[in-house]
């Protein structure tokens, strides 16, 4: 059902039942209630003597939490009404979209894509913030060789949950806020293709976060973020919540991915052909599509792992006829495409920024689309480069080395387009562009060290060491996080009507930029000198480089805190920006700020792409 602003239905009205009384608080209450109920039922009716009993109880409790939370937020009122033959009235739709609700709408099951985008900003901050705190715990433990900031058990839990929080956080860091807030406006739509599913994806993600944190609290997990079997089978019941969190998360990303793709494919305004789409829209649908391929493996690998624990199957247990290599294959079938699911939206956003702040058209639009397609295609074929030293299928080493090294060609295309766009531009070094330059400098290091690791003789030395950790942090922190911050600085004025504070933003940039190099260059050296990863303690040999890495990590943390400060201060009292502070040309800058409900009074007609700088 579609609805328009020019409706004659009364704006307020009608009793409207449960819908109007549900919010974040009722969701929490519902989650806890159903969690306790499920726990009690499981406790009462399951065979307490049976193998896997405590895992069954924990998983069912997790399920109860998710269902109760979604009920409590109101995710199921719409389907419920439809099921009983009463579709929602227009007033209900308007209420759902958050009309006239003011701030309250941010704490509700709201369908307006802009509200969902803002909610995603805060969900991302929660994920990256808690992940960051755990990172500080890890680095503090590694400050000096014999340091015991936390005990080994807690340390191992920190490792796994830090990794997973950051992975989930980065998957949504750009796609969550901006493919929701900006993308529909960019393509000239009044909302996402499926507004209610949009709210569903957000609140499913929110439901997954406490599960992940809860897993740390009940703990005893030694399996790292890759949840390798059989060590994951030995882990305490924390692992059950950990896996439930991921299963919930994959539902969220699947719903979100379908929505993103449908929005771009079907909701474009008149004249917005695929060749005129902003590059961020292309990046978003590539990432979403790749996610639709990758995340089912995530769901499957976690489910099989739970099955092994709960009901005694042996998918991953060699003595029972399964194999741990199956777990590793399934995990990396997800794991490698996932790194591009994370990377692509950030790159898309930064290409927009590069064009706007160089005052030049995007260099070679078609080449970069080809490059992104190449990245997606190849990234599905390289997963075993994470398994070179596992002993699985040594004869496939050569082919996987081939596919992995081929990826550097489309990766190079991203650099070509980035540099080509900057080339001879009039470069405006405002905050978003500062972070883009940081990205370029960092990504080259991450990319090149990736090529070393794809070479099997080198990987035989480097796999499982701090060198790998430094490699992917150069990509995740140095590239994706920088891109996410660039995107935040770029679109912040559209969300709030204010600039993100330039001065604090620059202080934050230098702290994070220098901190990243200090931390991870030293970490490369730790790895080269022979320090394995996931060590809670190490010999004197690695003393200096670890000390340096920890200091660098504190710098990153300080920089992120400054950024958080800038975010809060600017949101409340930053310099007003007007609707189009960067004089950009894509549609999101053509609508007023704050963006009205349903975005456009009259849908625009498009005659060119948004990169007509200098073409008048």
């Amino acid at each position, binding site marked *: 059902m579609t609805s328009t602003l020019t409706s004659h239905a009364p704006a307020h009205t009608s009793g409207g039942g449960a819908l109007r009384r549900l919010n974040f608080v009722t969701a929490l209450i519902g989650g806890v209630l159903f969690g306790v109920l499920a726990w009690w039922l499981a406790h009462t009716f399951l065979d307490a003597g049976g193998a896997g009993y405590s895992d069954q109880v924990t998983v069912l409790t997790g399920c109860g939490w998710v269902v109760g939370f979604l009920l409590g937020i109101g995710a199921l009122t719409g389907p419920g009404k439809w099921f009983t033959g009463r579709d929602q009235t227009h007033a209900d739709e308007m209420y759902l979209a958050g009309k006239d609700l003011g701030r309250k709408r941010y704490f509700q099951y709201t369908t307006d894509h802009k509200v969902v985008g803002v909610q995603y900003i805060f969900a991302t901050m929660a994920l990256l913030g808690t992940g960051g705190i755990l990172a500080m715990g890890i680095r503090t433990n590694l400050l000096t060789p014999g340091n015991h900031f936390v005990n080994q058990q807690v340390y*191992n839990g920190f490792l796994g949950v830090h990794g997973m929080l950051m992975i989930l956080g980065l998957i949504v860091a750009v796609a969550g806020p901006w493919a929701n807030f900006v993308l529909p406006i960019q393509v000239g739509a009044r909302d996402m293709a499926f507004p209610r599913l949009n709210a569903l994806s957000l609140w499913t993600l929110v439901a997954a976060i406490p599960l992940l944190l809860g897993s740390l609290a009940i703990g005893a997990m*030694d*399996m*790292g973020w890759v949840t*390798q079997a*059989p*060590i994951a089978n*030995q882990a305490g019941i924390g692992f059950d919540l950990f896996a439930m969190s991921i299963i919930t998360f994959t539902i969220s990303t699947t719903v979100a991915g379908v929505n993103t793709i449908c929005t771009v494919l079907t909701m474009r305004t008149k004249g917005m052909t695929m060749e005129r789409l902003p590059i961020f829209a292309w990046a978003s649908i590539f990432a979403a599509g790749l996610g639709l391929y990758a995340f089912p493996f995530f769901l499957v690998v976690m489910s099989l792992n739970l099955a092994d624990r709960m009901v005694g199957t042996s998918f991953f247990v*060699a*003595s029972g006829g399964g*194999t*741990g290599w199956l777990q590793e294959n399934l995990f990396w079938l997800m794991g490698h495409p996932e790194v591009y699911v994370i990377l692509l939206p950030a790159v898309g956003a930064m290409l927009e920024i590069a064009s706007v702040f160089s*005052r*030049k*058209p*995007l*260099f*070679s*639009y078609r*080449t970069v689309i080809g490059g992104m397609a190449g990245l997606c295609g190849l990234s599905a074929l390289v997963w075993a480069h994470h398994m070179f*030293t*596992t*002993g699985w299928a040594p004869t496939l*080493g050569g082919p996987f*080395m*081939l596919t992995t*090294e081929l990826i550097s*060609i489309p990766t*190079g295309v991203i*650099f070509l387009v980035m*540099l*080509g766009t*900057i*080339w*001879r*531009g*009039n*470069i*405006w070094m405002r905050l978003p562009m500062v972070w883009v*330059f940081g990205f370029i*400098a960092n990504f*080259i290091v991450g990319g*090149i060290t990736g*090529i*070393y690791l794809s*070479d*099997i*003789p*080198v990987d*035989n*030395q480097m*796999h*499982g060491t701090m060198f790998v950790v430094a490699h992917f942090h150069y990509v995740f922190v140095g590239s994706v996080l920088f891109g996410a911050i660039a995107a935040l600085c770029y679109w912040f004025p559209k969300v709030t009507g204010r600039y993100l504070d330039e001065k604090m933003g620059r202080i934050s940039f230098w702290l994070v930029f220098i901190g990243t190099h200090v931390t991870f260059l030293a970490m490369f050296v730790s790895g080269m*000198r*022979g320090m*394995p*990863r*996931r060590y809670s*303690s190490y010999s004197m040999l690695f003393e200096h480089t670890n000390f340096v890495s920890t200091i660098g990590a504190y710098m990153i943390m300080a920089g992120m805190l400054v950024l958080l400060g800038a975010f809060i201060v600017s949101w409340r009292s930053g310099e007003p920006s007007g609707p189009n502070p960067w004089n950009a040309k894509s549609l999101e800058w053509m609508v007023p700020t704050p963006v009205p409900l349903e975005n456009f009074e009259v849908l625009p007609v498009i005659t060119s792409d948004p990169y007509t700088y*200098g073409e008048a």
Partner: protein
Amino acid sequence: MSDNQNKKSSLHILFWIWVVLTVVGILVAIYGIPWLMPASASNTMHMSILTMVVFTVAAAPVAALVYSVVLFALAKWRYRGEGTPPDGPPIRGNNVTTSVWLVASTVLTVFLLIWGLALLASDATGEAKSEMTVNVTGQQWIWSFQYPGTSVSSHDLYIPVNTDVKFDVTSKDVVHGFWIVQMGIKINANPDEITTTSVTATKTGTFDIRCTEICGLNHAFMVTHVHVLTKKNFEHWLATQPATI
């Protein structure tokens, strides 16, 4: 100066920045990497270090190009006025640049591939000629080594120098990673599976073995040593060990 001349002379500068950065990169590759890596105790390790050097040399011009354009853009193309800068030249692509870029990156990639595959092939032929086998067992959190044909087992590894040794690796509980740090070999120890790797030590001495897969609480302490002895000393060591199995 005409606009054209200006453009030319400034690209000159860009070129020299690129040359300087490339040279720096190559120097770091040739001197820095071998200095940072452990001294090699096998040909396998020697080839890994060499590969890192070669790849860094090959990557140096690429990274230098990116950094020089970035530095040049910041110095030369940065807009220093107030407000939004005027529009730049509407360059929507350049087929020559794009083609050169694609061809160059393909050539580089193919070179790296051939290098890697050749190395891999030479490694594979090495495996056939193994002269002795050691059974390696990981368990939380110790390594055990058993010498087939004898009843000797040990927690430190002993092998003879200049002998191709094959390792049959397995685990009693979870996955561990068997890594001889200075010899550049690594293979996971999986429960109920046997994986193999092999190496020829080229130096006598004592080297490090560390576990590279997280295996529980004491993962960081699952370390031991390999003692590379002369063949004579190794025979002697083996003969004087008490039978432990």
